[in-house]
């Protein structure tokens, strides 16, 4: 302790306290500051319960550290659009150039394979027992870009392949523990085929369902 703190203005008292190595009682300053900063100010040990110097220092540090605790508690949301910007850049790296092609009197309708994958995924998620469903929309040469980034070999059942009004959809699914897996898989296939037929107009759809995880409880 370099000098008594009791006669100083509050800010000076705090600075003197922070310049000291120990309090008049012999207690070290750093552990006290750590105790307060880690949110353990109320956890007084036997010495601190009897010591006015320690109690005064803890009270001072608690007031001093309040803005830090406040900052920690303050939510800082991600800027709007951050996720979209990240995924947009990644999709540029793995651009899906495959489209469904439907010709009609009014012109040609092209729907990107990733849209097919998205709708298939969303349809699969409505099936009871499905905890998560992921659709993959990389294909062929395009998948090579993703493989280069992830060093993964091309999956044998890769992707959504679309040709005209035909599509092959690949879905990775995790189901809840206790659900009849084969029934869930059949349900997913029926649901996805119906959705792609009714909403996108695809006529021939094959759905490869890969049940690759069974989840227990709230989180895994």
């Amino acid at each position, binding site marked *: 302790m370099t000098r008594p703190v009791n006669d100083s203005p*509050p*800010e000076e008292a*705090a*600075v003197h306290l*922070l310049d000291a190595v120990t309090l008049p009682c012999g207690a070290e300053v*750093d552990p006290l*500051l*750590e105790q307060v*900063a880690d949110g353990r100010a109320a956890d007084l040990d036997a010495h601190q319960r009897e010591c006015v110097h320690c109690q005064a220092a803890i009270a001072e*540090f608690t*007031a*001093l*550290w*309040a*803005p*830090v605790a*406040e*900052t*920690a508690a*303050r*939510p*800082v*949301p*991600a*800027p709007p659009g*951050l*996720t979209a910007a*990240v*995924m947009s*850049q*990644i*999709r540029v*790296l*793995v651009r899906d150039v495959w489209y469904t092609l439907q010709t009609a009197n009014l012109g040609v309708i092209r729907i990107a394979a990733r849209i097919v*994958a998205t709708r298939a*995924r*969303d349809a699969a998620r409505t099936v009871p027992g499905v*905890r*998560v469903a*992921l*659709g*993959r*929309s*990389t294909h062929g040469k395009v*998948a090579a870009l*993703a*493989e280069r*980034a*992830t*060093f*993964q070999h091309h*999956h044998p059942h890769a*992707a959504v392949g679309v040709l005209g009004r035909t599509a092959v959809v690949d879905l*990775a699914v*995790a189901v809840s523990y206790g659900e009849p897996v084969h029934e869930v898989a059949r349900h997913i296939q029926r649901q996805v085929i119906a959705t792609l037929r009714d909403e996108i107009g695809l006529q021939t759809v094959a759905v490869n369902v890969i049940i690759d*995880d069974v*989840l227990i409880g*709230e*989180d*895994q």
Partner: protein
Amino acid sequence: MQPGPEVGDAYLVTRARDGYLDAYEILVQRHSAMAYRVALRLCGRHHDAQDIAQEALIAAWENLARFNGDSSFSTWLYQIVTRRALNKITRGQTPDPTNPLDDVTDPVTEPAVQAERNLAVDAVTQALATLPFPQRTVVVLHHLEGLSYAEVAEVTHSSVPAVRSHLFRARRTLGKKLAEWR
């Protein structure tokens, strides 16, 4: 797409490495706020923080194959964000602590209380900016992000004694700066 709260990060990382962008999108949704928040507290400027968070999340995807799963995805992302923040700062862009959190509002709090809280947060941001980067990093990770000493040591490729040593010095400096502000 809604984040999938029911599956863990490890499952999503595995699927993302298989090429399922959906899986990585859920990871981005889960962790983008953390990436931005840490970058903001380290560099002090909204636009820099946004750039750092975006670059870090893309770099994490590009390097998924190198992520061996020994640590959690969030720990790995903390490492990438702090490294990129340091790169940005050492390239000569010094923190500008002037109202860095102006665009972060809390609609529930009364305006007067909100203003007081903004002052407190600004004071902490300015005090943080005076710390050497290694000390700033451990304060942000431990006291603002709530990571344990061991987790901070893992993120910073350091040791628990080194983390505690940085924290001891940083707390004294921060305390003096905050005493001036009071």
